[in-house]
């Protein structure tokens, strides 16, 4: 059983998703969810890295996201991090917490995007505050695994 405060966070997330996907302007739902994630990530990482040493480089930051950051948020590490060393990082979470509550099965796959949007923003916001401007996308091919792709914007 996950910790009590994590349950609360999970419920809040679920309600946020519901609030914005049910709201009158559905089209903006994704960008709003992403933005909530962004500001949360931006602020959270400011606090979370208080005790962390200065990062060496981009890869160092990505490792931090996959390990310490992911543990703080999801109580587990990213299962697999890959990079092409040209600014693209792929983070695999084989058991993404926000997807575990949806029944697995293809028919629920269509609902997956709304449950990963917040996290995309969370990653983007965190990286933005750490000085990496990027685009974060997510891909869910079978529940509850999720693949986040970070594409760093250079220049």
């Amino acid at each position, binding site marked *: 059983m996950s910790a009590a405060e994590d349950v609360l966070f999970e419920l809040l997330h679920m309600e946020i998703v519901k609030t914005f996907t049910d709201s009158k302007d559905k089209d903006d739902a994704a960008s709003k969810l992403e933005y909530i994630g962004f*500001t949360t990530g*931006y*602020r*959270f*990482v*400011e*606090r979370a*890295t*208080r005790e*962390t*040493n*200065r*990062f*060496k*480089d981009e890869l160092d*930051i990505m490792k931090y996201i996959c390990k310490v950051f992911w543990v703080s948020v999801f109580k587990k590490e990213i299962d697999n991090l890959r990079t092409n060393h040209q600014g693209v990082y792929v983070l695999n979470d084989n058991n993404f917490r926000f997807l575990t509550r949806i029944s697995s099965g293809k028919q629920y796959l269509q609902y997956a995007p709304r449950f990963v949007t917040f996290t995309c923003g969370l990653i983007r916001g965190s990286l933005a*505050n*750490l*000085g990496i401007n990027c685009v974060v996308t997510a891909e869910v091919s079978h529940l509850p695994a999720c693949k986040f792709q970070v594409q760093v914007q250079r220049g």
Partner: protein
Amino acid sequence: MAVSLTIIGKENSPLYIWMDEGRDSLQLQYLAHTGLDVIQEKISVGQKLPGDSRELYLGLLYASEEYKIYGYTTNSKIKFIVITDVTNAALRDNEIRMMFRHLHSIYSTVVCNPFYVPGEKISSQ
């Protein structure tokens, strides 16, 4: 106690400046401003000095005839600069470090205020 305390944003513009009363504000600002050169050099990527602990606390940046200028950076590229009197022997390195830690903590609280827009001047404190 320190005579000046400055928070500098990602783009190297001051977000918050505090000065001990009665000091020459501009002079202290010049000191803090030039201190940025040292901070920038210290945190520049590729700078691999032996014995660099990668600590957020950057230590003494430099000293002038009257003041000592200390620096600290966060992982989010926010810089703090504290200026002390050269003659102030009471402040040892560790105390300066703790002062910065405290400052960082306060800063992160400010950033976490949902009504604060990062990059704006800090009005509270």
